[in-house]
């Protein structure tokens, strides 16, 4: 047993750069597959409601605006979303995607809502969804 086994390491660190970054001024890159917030590409959505059914947080809400014109509205409640990307996996047409934003906090939870109003798309679904 020797005394002060830690001292050389401590001294070495006097001359090292800090391990952290100056966060608000300097930001770390997020990896390309980072799970940020989900967003919809309405031109691809066939309103199959798979995302709404599988979302564990009940954050996706699809309502019919006008049945005859096939107009629908999708609301993603980002305040409830747990950023799991299950909706992306469930979507058969890749209409749902994740962005890489991470600074999404707000003073009012209602500002976190995202909504789209669109006409149902006619796209052929992928032969097999990753998980359904």
């Amino acid at each position, binding site marked *: 047993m020797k*005394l002060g086994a*830690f001292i050389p390491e401590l001294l070495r660190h006097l001359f090292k750069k800090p391990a952290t970054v100056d966060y608000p001024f300097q930001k770390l890159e997020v990896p390309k597959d*980072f799970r940020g917030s989900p967003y919809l590409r309405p031109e691809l959505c066939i309103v199959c409601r798979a995302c709404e059914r599988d979302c564990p947080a009940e954050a996706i809400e699809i309502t019919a605006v006008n049945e005859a014109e096939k107009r629908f509205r999708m609301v993603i409640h980002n305040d409830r979303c747990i950023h799991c990307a299950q909706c992306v996996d469930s979507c058969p047409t890749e209409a749902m995607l994740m962005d890489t934003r991470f600074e999404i906090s707000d003073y009012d939870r209602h500002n976190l809502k995202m909504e789209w109003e669109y006409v149902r798309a006619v796209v052929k679904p992928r032969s097999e969804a990753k998980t*359904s």
Partner: protein
Amino acid sequence: MKFQIPIGPQHPALKEPISLRMTVEGEVIRDADIRLGYNHRGLEKLAEQKTWIQNIYLTERICGICSHSHTTCYVQGVEKLMELEPPKRGLYIRTLVAELERIHSHLLWLGVAGHEAGFDSFFMYTWRDREIVMDILEIITGNRVHYGINTIGGVRRDLDEQQVKRILDSLDILRQRSEYYKHLGTNEPSFVARLAGVGYLSREDAIALCAVGPTLRASGVAMDVRKDDPYAVYDEVPFEVCTADTCDVLGRTVVRIKELFQCYNIIEFLLKNLPAGPVAVRAPRRAKPNEVVSRYEAPRGENIHYIKSNGTDKPERLKVRAPTLGNYAATIQMLKNGFIADVPLIFAAIDPCICCAERAVSLVDARTGQEKIISLNSLKSLSLKLSAGNKRKREAEWPL
């Protein structure tokens, strides 16, 4: 003269709500009693209302640190219920994330042990190096804490060449750093003196009280679900079960450091032998009526999920036994005849995750000892009534 002193549920030394009633003689603890139930999770009930897929994300949120342990345990059980055979590559990636999680959990624990022993620079250094693992996890799964990599029938994301190389490179740094911590953990005299002999749990007691995980292995019992009842691909991976025979907190530290090195070897093996092919198979939405018990060696010990299906797309029952619950009985034994000053250290040495083991709150009348069930709203009004008498608190204003 004997005194009873309560520690917790709110106490600076314990970060989570749990209450210890200790009978002390001077500084020495003669008897201890653990009271649970300060945290209402309502999780098992919630699981009955969610579909098989939604429950993956629910079980993931049982614990922040062993999130992958709970999902794997759950998903394995559901795969058995649905009679699915996940592809090899999927199982390899699942095991890889499991071992990365073990590294991050053990490094985190080492830091906590350093902190509780009053060695805060050790705490900061281990946590800095833990960031390396967190970054790897973020790269391969898309998030640092809740990886969400498991799905029923495999995993959700594949690995590419670049990621494999990145992980292997980082492993070298981690190995080097762990080597240093091993050296430090066994050579720094004040650290060793603080940990040695504290929280003694004999081999017989550890077995009799059903301790799990590193706590059990530090008492010289080589028990590990990965070896005894291999799941995923552990039957193909060479590794050793690490034990120590000092039966104290120092032993628990040594076991965890040794396990770190095993993790590095396992990860290296997995990456070098990664089979090609798909990562997941398609899962049905329903499971036939049946029941299953799934076991998993989490960083803290054996994790058990019991799942019962009834033919619908939701489970009929999900019961979770988190490893911390298995260690409580042994903790009482460790506390006995110890000093009050050792309580945080002994408690931290089982790596407690109290909120994972908690399920529901029961209200007990302090005078009559009677239990009652009340609604959330009446609980709220009850607490408002209690604080109503405290005017200064209710009308406090920010002084600046």
